[in-house]
Protein backbone atom coordinates (compact mmCIF):
# COMPACT_ATOMS: atom_id res chain seq x y z
CA UNK A 1 0.00 0.00 0.00
CA UNK A 2 1.60 3.27 -1.11
CA UNK A 3 -0.89 5.79 0.14
CA UNK A 4 -1.45 7.14 3.62
CA UNK A 5 -4.71 8.88 2.83
CA UNK A 6 -7.12 9.60 0.05
CA UNK A 7 -5.81 13.10 -0.46
CA UNK A 8 -2.30 11.76 -0.82
CA UNK A 9 -3.67 9.35 -3.38
CA UNK A 10 -5.25 12.13 -5.38
CA UNK A 11 -2.21 14.37 -5.13
CA UNK A 12 0.01 11.66 -6.65
CA UNK A 13 3.09 13.17 -5.09
CA UNK A 14 2.51 16.45 -6.92
CA UNK A 15 1.87 14.80 -10.27
CA UNK A 16 -1.89 14.60 -9.81
CA UNK A 17 -2.73 16.77 -12.80
CA UNK A 18 -0.62 14.69 -15.16
CA UNK A 19 -1.49 11.25 -13.84
CA UNK A 20 -5.20 11.89 -13.49
CA UNK A 21 -5.21 13.79 -16.75
CA UNK A 22 -3.89 10.69 -18.46
CA UNK A 23 -6.01 8.12 -16.71
CA UNK A 24 -9.10 10.29 -16.76
CA UNK A 25 -8.96 11.12 -20.44
CA UNK A 26 -8.24 7.52 -21.30
CA UNK A 27 -11.20 6.30 -19.28
CA UNK A 28 -13.44 8.99 -20.72
CA UNK A 29 -12.33 8.26 -24.27
CA UNK A 30 -12.94 4.55 -23.97
CA UNK A 31 -16.30 5.18 -22.35
CA UNK A 32 -17.37 7.63 -25.02
CA UNK A 33 -16.30 5.28 -27.76
CA UNK A 34 -18.37 2.51 -26.22
CA UNK A 35 -21.39 4.76 -25.98
CA UNK A 36 -20.99 5.94 -29.56
CA UNK A 37 -20.76 2.40 -30.84
CA UNK A 38 -23.84 1.41 -28.88
CA UNK A 39 -25.69 4.40 -30.26
CA UNK A 40 -24.67 3.54 -33.79
CA UNK A 41 -25.87 -0.02 -33.40
CA UNK A 42 -29.10 1.05 -31.73
CA UNK A 43 -29.84 3.67 -34.38
CA UNK A 44 -29.34 1.21 -37.19
CA UNK A 45 -31.51 -1.36 -35.51
CA UNK A 46 -34.27 1.14 -34.88
CA UNK A 47 -34.17 2.31 -38.50
CA UNK A 48 -34.31 -1.24 -39.80
CA UNK A 49 -37.19 -2.16 -37.55
CA UNK A 50 -39.11 0.80 -38.82
CA UNK A 51 -38.37 -0.07 -42.43
CA UNK A 52 -39.37 -3.67 -41.93
CA UNK A 53 -42.58 -2.69 -40.19
CA UNK A 54 -43.39 -0.36 -43.07
CA UNK A 55 -42.71 -3.16 -45.53
CA UNK A 56 -44.99 -5.55 -43.69
CA UNK A 57 -47.74 -2.97 -43.56
CA UNK A 58 -47.49 -2.23 -47.26
CA UNK A 59 -47.67 -5.97 -47.98
CA UNK A 60 -50.80 -6.49 -45.92
CA UNK B 1 -30.19 39.61 -47.73
CA UNK B 2 -32.21 36.41 -47.93
CA UNK B 3 -30.14 35.26 -50.83
CA UNK B 4 -26.99 36.02 -48.83
CA UNK B 5 -28.13 33.72 -46.06
CA UNK B 6 -29.25 31.16 -48.62
CA UNK B 7 -25.89 30.97 -50.29
CA UNK B 8 -24.06 30.92 -46.98
CA UNK B 9 -26.21 28.05 -45.83
CA UNK B 10 -25.79 26.18 -49.07
CA UNK B 11 -22.01 26.45 -48.98
CA UNK B 12 -21.87 25.36 -45.36
CA UNK B 13 -24.19 22.48 -46.18
CA UNK B 14 -21.94 21.43 -49.02
CA UNK B 15 -18.93 21.58 -46.72
CA UNK B 16 -20.71 19.43 -44.16
CA UNK B 17 -21.84 17.02 -46.80
CA UNK B 18 -18.31 16.43 -47.92
CA UNK B 19 -18.10 15.28 -44.36
CA UNK B 20 -14.44 15.54 -43.71
CA UNK B 21 -13.81 18.67 -45.75
CA UNK B 22 -13.39 21.06 -42.86
CA UNK B 23 -11.37 18.52 -40.96
CA UNK B 24 -9.08 17.81 -43.85
CA UNK B 25 -8.24 21.50 -44.32
CA UNK B 26 -7.25 21.42 -40.69
CA UNK B 27 -5.22 18.30 -41.13
CA UNK B 28 -3.41 19.83 -44.04
CA UNK B 29 -2.42 22.72 -41.81
CA UNK B 30 -1.34 20.31 -39.11
CA UNK B 31 0.67 18.11 -41.42
CA UNK B 32 2.43 20.96 -43.17
CA UNK B 33 3.41 22.43 -39.84
CA UNK B 34 4.71 19.06 -38.73
CA UNK B 35 6.73 18.62 -41.93
CA UNK B 36 9.07 21.45 -41.05
CA UNK B 37 10.64 19.93 -37.96
CA UNK B 38 11.06 16.78 -40.05
CA UNK B 39 12.91 18.67 -42.74
CA UNK B 40 14.87 20.91 -40.43
CA UNK B 41 15.64 18.83 -37.39
CA UNK B 42 14.46 18.65 -33.82
CA UNK B 43 16.38 21.40 -31.99
CA UNK B 44 13.94 23.16 -29.71
CA UNK B 45 15.61 26.57 -29.72
CA UNK B 46 15.77 26.68 -33.49
CA UNK B 47 12.19 25.50 -33.83
CA UNK B 48 10.88 28.10 -31.40
CA UNK B 49 12.67 30.75 -33.43
CA UNK B 50 11.04 29.80 -36.73
CA UNK B 51 7.63 28.83 -35.31
CA UNK B 52 5.66 32.04 -36.09
CA UNK B 53 6.86 32.06 -39.67
CA UNK B 54 6.17 28.39 -40.21
CA UNK B 55 2.69 28.54 -38.71
CA UNK B 56 1.75 31.57 -40.73
CA UNK B 57 3.07 30.16 -44.00
CA UNK B 58 1.20 26.94 -43.35
CA UNK B 59 -2.03 28.80 -42.58
CA UNK B 60 -1.61 30.75 -45.76
CA UNK B 61 -1.08 27.61 -47.82
CA UNK B 62 -4.03 25.83 -46.21
CA UNK B 63 -6.32 28.77 -46.91
CA UNK B 64 -5.01 28.98 -50.46
CA UNK B 65 -5.40 25.29 -51.23
CA UNK B 66 -9.08 25.39 -50.50
CA UNK B 67 -9.53 28.40 -52.78
CA UNK B 68 -9.87 26.64 -56.09
CA UNK B 69 -13.06 25.02 -54.98
CA UNK B 70 -14.47 28.45 -54.10
CA UNK B 71 -15.94 29.19 -57.53
CA UNK B 72 -14.69 26.46 -59.85
CA UNK B 73 -17.41 23.93 -59.14
CA UNK B 74 -20.10 26.59 -59.37
CA UNK B 75 -18.68 27.73 -62.68
CA UNK B 76 -18.55 24.30 -64.18
CA UNK B 77 -22.01 23.13 -63.30
CA UNK B 78 -23.71 26.36 -64.27
CA UNK B 79 -24.57 27.59 -60.76
CA UNK B 80 -22.51 30.69 -61.29
CA UNK B 81 -24.59 31.64 -64.31
CA UNK B 82 -27.64 31.32 -62.12
CA UNK B 83 -26.04 33.53 -59.48
CA UNK B 84 -25.24 36.15 -62.08
CA UNK B 85 -28.87 36.06 -63.18
CA UNK B 86 -30.19 36.40 -59.64
CA UNK B 87 -31.87 39.74 -58.86
CA UNK B 88 -29.74 40.01 -55.70
CA UNK B 89 -26.51 41.94 -56.34
CA UNK B 90 -23.74 39.52 -57.20
CA UNK B 91 -21.39 41.21 -54.73
CA UNK B 92 -23.67 40.22 -51.87
CA UNK B 93 -23.79 36.60 -53.00
CA UNK B 94 -20.03 36.63 -53.35
CA UNK B 95 -19.65 37.93 -49.81
CA UNK B 96 -21.77 35.04 -48.62
CA UNK B 97 -19.48 32.58 -50.35
CA UNK B 98 -16.39 34.25 -48.91
CA UNK B 99 -17.82 34.16 -45.41
CA UNK B 100 -18.60 30.47 -45.83
CA UNK B 101 -15.04 29.92 -47.00
CA UNK B 102 -13.62 31.65 -43.96
CA UNK B 103 -15.87 29.72 -41.60
CA UNK B 104 -14.80 26.41 -43.07
CA UNK B 105 -11.18 27.06 -43.98
CA UNK B 106 -10.03 30.00 -41.88
CA UNK B 107 -11.63 29.84 -38.45
CA UNK B 108 -10.61 26.22 -37.78
CA UNK B 109 -6.99 27.20 -38.38
CA UNK B 110 -7.23 29.95 -35.80
CA UNK B 111 -8.54 27.48 -33.27
CA UNK B 112 -5.95 24.81 -33.98
CA UNK B 113 -2.93 27.07 -34.11
CA UNK B 114 -2.21 27.14 -30.36
CA UNK B 115 -2.02 23.35 -30.18
CA UNK B 116 0.53 23.31 -32.97
CA UNK B 117 2.35 26.19 -31.33
CA UNK B 118 2.82 23.98 -28.28
CA UNK B 119 4.73 21.50 -30.40
CA UNK B 120 7.16 24.30 -31.15
CA UNK B 121 7.44 25.12 -27.48
CA UNK B 122 5.96 28.64 -27.73
CA UNK B 123 5.04 30.48 -24.54
CA UNK B 124 1.36 30.89 -23.75
CA UNK B 125 1.65 34.64 -24.30
CA UNK B 126 3.06 34.12 -27.77
CA UNK B 127 0.28 31.64 -28.46
CA UNK B 128 -2.31 34.27 -27.64
CA UNK B 129 -0.76 36.80 -30.00
CA UNK B 130 -0.53 34.12 -32.67
CA UNK B 131 -4.23 33.39 -32.41
CA UNK B 132 -5.10 37.07 -32.49
CA UNK B 133 -2.99 37.67 -35.57
CA UNK B 134 -4.58 34.70 -37.32
CA UNK B 135 -8.03 35.87 -36.34
CA UNK B 136 -7.39 39.18 -38.06
CA UNK B 137 -5.40 37.66 -40.90
CA UNK B 138 -7.39 34.66 -42.12
CA UNK B 139 -10.48 36.63 -43.21
CA UNK B 140 -8.11 38.76 -45.22
CA UNK B 141 -6.73 35.61 -46.82
CA UNK B 142 -10.23 34.51 -47.81
CA UNK B 143 -11.09 37.94 -49.23
CA UNK B 144 -7.94 38.29 -51.29
CA UNK B 145 -8.11 34.65 -52.31
CA UNK B 146 -11.60 35.13 -53.69
CA UNK B 147 -10.33 37.73 -56.13
CA UNK B 148 -7.66 35.33 -57.32
CA UNK B 149 -10.09 32.43 -57.55
CA UNK B 150 -12.45 34.52 -59.66
CA UNK B 151 -9.70 35.75 -61.92
CA UNK B 152 -8.37 32.28 -62.69
CA UNK B 153 -11.79 30.81 -63.27
CA UNK B 154 -11.92 28.70 -66.37
CA UNK B 155 -8.40 29.72 -67.23
CA UNK B 156 -6.06 27.00 -68.36
CA UNK B 157 -3.76 25.80 -65.57
CA UNK B 158 -5.91 27.64 -63.09
CA UNK B 159 -4.83 25.92 -59.88
CA UNK B 160 -1.21 26.86 -59.99
CA UNK B 161 -1.80 30.18 -61.65
CA UNK B 162 -4.05 30.99 -58.71
CA UNK B 163 -1.24 30.58 -56.22
CA UNK B 164 0.97 32.68 -58.41
CA UNK B 165 -1.55 35.51 -58.30
CA UNK B 166 -2.57 35.21 -54.73
CA UNK B 167 0.59 34.46 -52.81
CA UNK B 168 2.26 37.80 -53.54
CA UNK B 169 -0.88 39.54 -52.33
CA UNK B 170 -0.73 37.49 -49.16
CA UNK B 171 2.74 38.74 -48.32
CA UNK B 172 1.71 41.80 -46.29
CA UNK B 173 -0.60 39.65 -44.18
CA UNK B 174 2.27 37.22 -43.63
CA UNK B 175 4.75 39.90 -42.67
CA UNK B 176 2.50 41.66 -40.18
CA UNK B 177 1.02 38.43 -38.83
CA UNK B 178 4.26 36.56 -38.23
CA UNK B 179 5.91 39.84 -37.33
CA UNK B 180 3.43 40.45 -34.52
CA UNK B 181 4.35 37.19 -32.81
CA UNK B 182 8.06 37.69 -33.34
CA UNK B 183 7.94 41.24 -32.07
CA UNK B 184 6.18 40.04 -28.98
CA UNK B 185 8.69 37.24 -28.43
CA UNK B 186 11.48 39.80 -28.79
CA UNK B 187 9.74 41.96 -26.18
CA UNK B 188 8.88 44.76 -28.60
CA UNK B 189 5.10 44.64 -28.34
CA UNK B 190 2.79 43.40 -31.04
CA UNK B 191 0.35 46.31 -31.10
CA UNK B 192 1.66 48.06 -34.17
CA UNK B 193 1.70 44.96 -36.31
CA UNK B 194 -1.77 43.95 -35.22
CA UNK B 195 -3.32 47.32 -35.93
CA UNK B 196 -1.80 47.36 -39.40
CA UNK B 197 -3.27 43.92 -39.98
CA UNK B 198 -6.65 45.24 -38.85
CA UNK B 199 -6.40 48.15 -41.25
CA UNK B 200 -5.65 45.78 -44.11
CA UNK B 201 -8.65 43.70 -43.16
CA UNK B 202 -10.94 46.74 -43.22
CA UNK B 203 -9.60 47.65 -46.63
CA UNK B 204 -10.15 44.10 -47.88
CA UNK B 205 -13.70 43.92 -46.55
CA UNK B 206 -14.51 47.05 -48.43
CA UNK B 207 -12.90 46.41 -51.81
CA UNK B 208 -12.50 42.66 -52.30
CA UNK B 209 -16.16 41.79 -52.96
CA UNK B 210 -16.34 44.35 -55.78
CA UNK B 211 -13.15 43.18 -57.40
CA UNK B 212 -14.31 39.58 -57.15
CA UNK B 213 -17.65 40.40 -58.72
CA UNK B 214 -16.00 42.17 -61.62
CA UNK B 215 -13.68 39.22 -62.17
CA UNK B 216 -16.59 36.80 -62.11
CA UNK B 217 -18.48 38.76 -64.74
CA UNK B 218 -15.44 38.57 -66.98
CA UNK B 219 -15.18 34.82 -66.51
CA UNK B 220 -18.83 34.40 -67.44
CA UNK B 221 -18.66 36.27 -70.73
Amino acid at each position, binding site marked *: MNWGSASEFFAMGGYGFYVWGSFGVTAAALLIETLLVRKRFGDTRRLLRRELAADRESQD | MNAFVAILR*RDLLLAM*RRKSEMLTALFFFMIVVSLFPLGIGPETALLRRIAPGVLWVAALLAAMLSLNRLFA*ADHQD*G*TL*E*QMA*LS*PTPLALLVSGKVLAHWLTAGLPLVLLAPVLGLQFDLSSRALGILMLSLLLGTPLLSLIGAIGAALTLGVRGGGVLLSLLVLPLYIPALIFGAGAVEADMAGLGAGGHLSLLGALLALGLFFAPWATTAALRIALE
Partner: protein
Amino acid sequence: MLQAHGLACVRGDRRLFSGVDLSVAPGQWLQVEGANGAGKTSLLRILAGLSPAAEGRIEWEGQPVAEGRDDFHARLLYLGHAPAIKDDLSALENLQTSAAVSGRPLDEATALTALRRIGLKGREDLPSRVLSQGQKRRVALARLLCGQARLWILDEPFVALDVGAVDMLCGILDEHIGRGGMLIFTSHQAVQLQGNGARLELTK
Protein backbone atom coordinates in the same frame (compact mmCIF):
# COMPACT_ATOMS: atom_id res chain seq x y z
CA MET C 1 -42.17 41.56 -74.02
CA LEU C 2 -38.62 40.89 -75.15
CA GLN C 3 -37.35 42.49 -78.33
CA ALA C 4 -33.99 42.37 -80.04
CA HIS C 5 -32.81 44.30 -83.07
CA GLY C 6 -29.89 43.60 -85.34
CA LEU C 7 -28.07 41.23 -83.02
CA ALA C 8 -24.72 39.93 -84.19
CA CYS C 9 -22.31 37.51 -82.60
CA VAL C 10 -18.62 37.05 -83.34
CA ARG C 11 -16.59 34.15 -81.99
CA GLY C 12 -12.89 34.03 -82.72
CA ASP C 13 -12.64 35.22 -86.30
CA ARG C 14 -16.01 33.80 -87.20
CA ARG C 15 -19.19 35.83 -87.49
CA LEU C 16 -21.84 33.37 -86.31
CA PHE C 17 -24.85 35.47 -87.20
CA SER C 18 -25.78 39.08 -87.73
CA GLY C 19 -28.89 41.16 -88.21
CA VAL C 20 -31.03 38.91 -86.03
CA ASP C 21 -34.31 40.56 -85.05
CA LEU C 22 -36.75 38.87 -82.76
CA SER C 23 -39.58 39.62 -80.42
CA VAL C 24 -41.53 37.51 -77.97
CA ALA C 25 -44.76 38.80 -76.50
CA PRO C 26 -46.70 37.34 -73.55
CA GLY C 27 -48.29 34.02 -74.53
CA GLN C 28 -45.80 33.44 -77.33
CA TRP C 29 -42.97 31.02 -77.85
CA LEU C 30 -39.93 31.19 -80.08
CA GLN C 31 -37.90 28.17 -81.16
CA VAL C 32 -34.37 28.94 -82.28
CA GLU C 33 -33.21 26.45 -84.87
CA GLY C 34 -30.00 25.76 -86.68
CA ALA C 35 -27.33 23.16 -87.29
CA ASN C 36 -24.71 22.26 -84.69
CA GLY C 37 -22.51 25.24 -84.19
CA ALA C 38 -24.90 27.69 -85.81
CA GLY C 39 -24.85 29.84 -82.69
CA LYS C 40 -28.05 28.97 -80.87
CA THR C 41 -26.41 28.70 -77.47
CA SER C 42 -24.49 31.89 -78.11
CA LEU C 43 -27.71 33.72 -79.00
CA LEU C 44 -29.54 32.52 -75.91
CA ARG C 45 -26.69 33.57 -73.64
CA ILE C 46 -26.71 37.00 -75.24
CA LEU C 47 -30.45 37.33 -74.72
CA ALA C 48 -30.11 36.30 -71.08
CA GLY C 49 -27.48 38.96 -70.58
CA LEU C 50 -24.68 36.48 -69.86
CA SER C 51 -22.46 37.62 -72.68
CA PRO C 52 -22.47 40.84 -74.69
CA ALA C 53 -23.56 41.02 -78.31
CA ALA C 54 -21.14 42.26 -80.93
CA GLU C 55 -23.87 44.46 -82.37
CA GLY C 56 -27.52 45.20 -81.79
CA ARG C 57 -29.68 45.95 -78.79
CA ILE C 58 -32.09 44.09 -76.53
CA GLU C 59 -35.16 45.55 -74.89
CA TRP C 60 -37.31 44.24 -72.06
CA GLU C 61 -40.75 45.84 -71.78
CA GLY C 62 -39.54 48.60 -74.06
CA GLN C 63 -36.45 49.45 -71.98
CA PRO C 64 -32.87 48.53 -72.87
CA VAL C 65 -31.96 45.51 -70.74
CA ALA C 66 -28.62 47.01 -69.77
CA GLU C 67 -30.45 49.72 -67.83
CA GLY C 68 -32.76 47.51 -65.79
CA ARG C 69 -30.64 44.44 -65.29
CA ASP C 70 -31.88 43.33 -61.86
CA ASP C 71 -35.44 43.94 -62.87
CA PHE C 72 -35.03 41.83 -65.99
CA HIS C 73 -33.29 39.05 -64.09
CA ALA C 74 -36.04 38.93 -61.50
CA ARG C 75 -38.45 37.96 -64.29
CA LEU C 76 -36.10 35.57 -66.11
CA LEU C 77 -35.45 31.85 -65.80
CA TYR C 78 -32.49 30.60 -67.83
CA LEU C 79 -31.46 26.95 -68.05
CA GLY C 80 -28.33 26.26 -70.08
CA HIS C 81 -26.50 23.19 -71.31
CA ALA C 82 -24.96 22.62 -67.87
CA PRO C 83 -27.68 21.64 -65.42
CA ALA C 84 -26.37 23.67 -62.41
CA ILE C 85 -26.68 20.63 -60.19
CA LYS C 86 -24.35 19.99 -57.23
CA ASP C 87 -23.31 16.37 -57.22
CA ASP C 88 -23.07 16.28 -53.45
CA LEU C 89 -26.52 17.64 -52.74
CA SER C 90 -29.73 15.70 -53.08
CA ALA C 91 -32.36 16.61 -55.66
CA LEU C 92 -34.41 18.32 -52.98
CA GLU C 93 -31.51 20.34 -51.62
CA ASN C 94 -30.45 21.30 -55.11
CA LEU C 95 -33.87 22.61 -55.96
CA GLN C 96 -34.31 24.51 -52.71
CA THR C 97 -30.91 26.14 -52.70
CA SER C 98 -31.00 27.16 -56.35
CA ALA C 99 -34.40 28.73 -55.81
CA ALA C 100 -33.22 30.56 -52.71
CA VAL C 101 -30.11 31.86 -54.43
CA SER C 102 -32.19 33.31 -57.22
CA GLY C 103 -34.21 35.13 -54.60
CA ARG C 104 -37.36 33.01 -54.45
CA PRO C 105 -37.06 30.61 -51.50
CA LEU C 106 -39.17 27.47 -51.60
CA ASP C 107 -40.66 25.55 -48.74
CA GLU C 108 -40.04 21.84 -48.64
CA ALA C 109 -43.57 20.81 -49.52
CA THR C 110 -43.65 22.83 -52.75
CA ALA C 111 -40.23 21.55 -53.72
CA LEU C 112 -41.24 17.95 -53.07
CA THR C 113 -44.41 18.35 -55.12
CA ALA C 114 -42.41 19.75 -58.01
CA LEU C 115 -39.89 16.91 -57.86
CA ARG C 116 -42.63 14.29 -57.78
CA ARG C 117 -44.42 15.90 -60.68
CA ILE C 118 -41.23 15.92 -62.73
CA GLY C 119 -40.83 12.20 -62.11
CA LEU C 120 -38.26 11.96 -59.36
CA LYS C 121 -40.46 10.28 -56.81
CA GLY C 122 -38.33 8.14 -54.49
CA ARG C 123 -35.14 9.86 -55.65
CA GLU C 124 -35.60 13.12 -53.74
CA ASP C 125 -32.92 12.34 -51.19
CA LEU C 126 -30.26 10.57 -53.21
CA PRO C 127 -27.07 12.55 -53.82
CA SER C 128 -27.33 13.82 -57.39
CA ARG C 129 -24.05 12.15 -58.24
CA VAL C 130 -25.75 8.78 -58.56
CA LEU C 131 -28.68 9.99 -60.65
CA SER C 132 -28.85 9.03 -64.30
CA GLN C 133 -28.27 11.55 -67.04
CA GLY C 134 -31.96 12.13 -67.60
CA GLN C 135 -32.72 12.34 -63.89
CA LYS C 136 -30.14 15.09 -63.46
CA ARG C 137 -31.78 17.08 -66.22
CA ARG C 138 -35.11 16.62 -64.51
CA VAL C 139 -33.78 18.09 -61.27
CA ALA C 140 -32.83 21.19 -63.22
CA LEU C 141 -36.18 21.28 -64.99
CA ALA C 142 -38.04 21.08 -61.70
CA ARG C 143 -37.24 24.76 -61.28
CA LEU C 144 -39.73 25.48 -64.05
CA LEU C 145 -42.48 24.27 -61.76
CA CYS C 146 -41.77 26.57 -58.89
CA GLY C 147 -41.13 30.14 -59.86
CA GLN C 148 -43.07 33.08 -61.21
CA ALA C 149 -40.61 34.01 -63.94
CA ARG C 150 -42.35 35.51 -66.97
CA LEU C 151 -39.64 34.71 -69.49
CA TRP C 152 -38.11 31.27 -69.84
CA ILE C 153 -34.94 30.80 -71.87
CA LEU C 154 -34.18 27.09 -72.23
CA ASP C 155 -31.20 25.68 -74.09
CA GLU C 156 -32.01 22.17 -75.35
CA PRO C 157 -34.40 21.30 -72.53
CA PHE C 158 -35.37 18.01 -74.19
CA VAL C 159 -31.91 16.49 -74.27
CA ALA C 160 -31.51 13.17 -72.43
CA LEU C 161 -35.20 12.97 -71.54
CA ASP C 162 -37.16 9.82 -72.28
CA VAL C 163 -40.32 9.93 -74.37
CA GLY C 164 -42.67 10.28 -71.43
CA ALA C 165 -40.66 13.13 -70.00
CA VAL C 166 -40.61 14.93 -73.33
CA ASP C 167 -44.42 14.90 -73.39
CA MET C 168 -44.59 16.05 -69.80
CA LEU C 169 -42.21 18.92 -70.48
CA CYS C 170 -44.27 19.95 -73.51
CA GLY C 171 -47.27 20.07 -71.22
CA ILE C 172 -45.41 22.27 -68.76
CA LEU C 173 -44.33 24.63 -71.51
CA ASP C 174 -47.86 24.83 -72.88
CA GLU C 175 -49.15 25.68 -69.44
CA HIS C 176 -46.60 28.46 -69.06
CA ILE C 177 -47.56 29.96 -72.39
CA GLY C 178 -51.23 29.57 -71.59
CA ARG C 179 -50.66 31.62 -68.42
CA GLY C 180 -49.26 34.43 -70.58
CA GLY C 181 -45.60 33.50 -70.13
CA MET C 182 -42.91 33.91 -72.73
CA LEU C 183 -40.60 31.15 -73.92
CA ILE C 184 -37.46 31.00 -76.00
CA PHE C 185 -35.88 27.59 -76.51
CA THR C 186 -33.74 25.48 -78.80
CA SER C 187 -34.15 21.85 -79.71
CA HIS C 188 -32.98 19.48 -82.40
CA GLN C 189 -35.99 17.29 -81.80
CA ALA C 190 -39.28 18.18 -83.44
CA VAL C 191 -41.69 19.29 -80.70
CA GLN C 192 -45.29 20.34 -80.92
CA LEU C 193 -46.23 23.25 -78.69
CA GLN C 194 -49.64 24.81 -78.60
CA GLY C 195 -50.31 28.50 -78.68
CA ASN C 196 -48.83 31.27 -80.63
CA GLY C 197 -45.32 30.50 -81.77
CA ALA C 198 -42.59 31.27 -84.21
CA ARG C 199 -39.36 29.71 -85.37
CA LEU C 200 -36.09 31.45 -85.97
CA GLU C 201 -33.60 29.70 -88.21
CA LEU C 202 -29.97 30.64 -87.73
CA THR C 203 -28.00 30.16 -90.91
CA LYS C 204 -24.65 31.42 -92.02
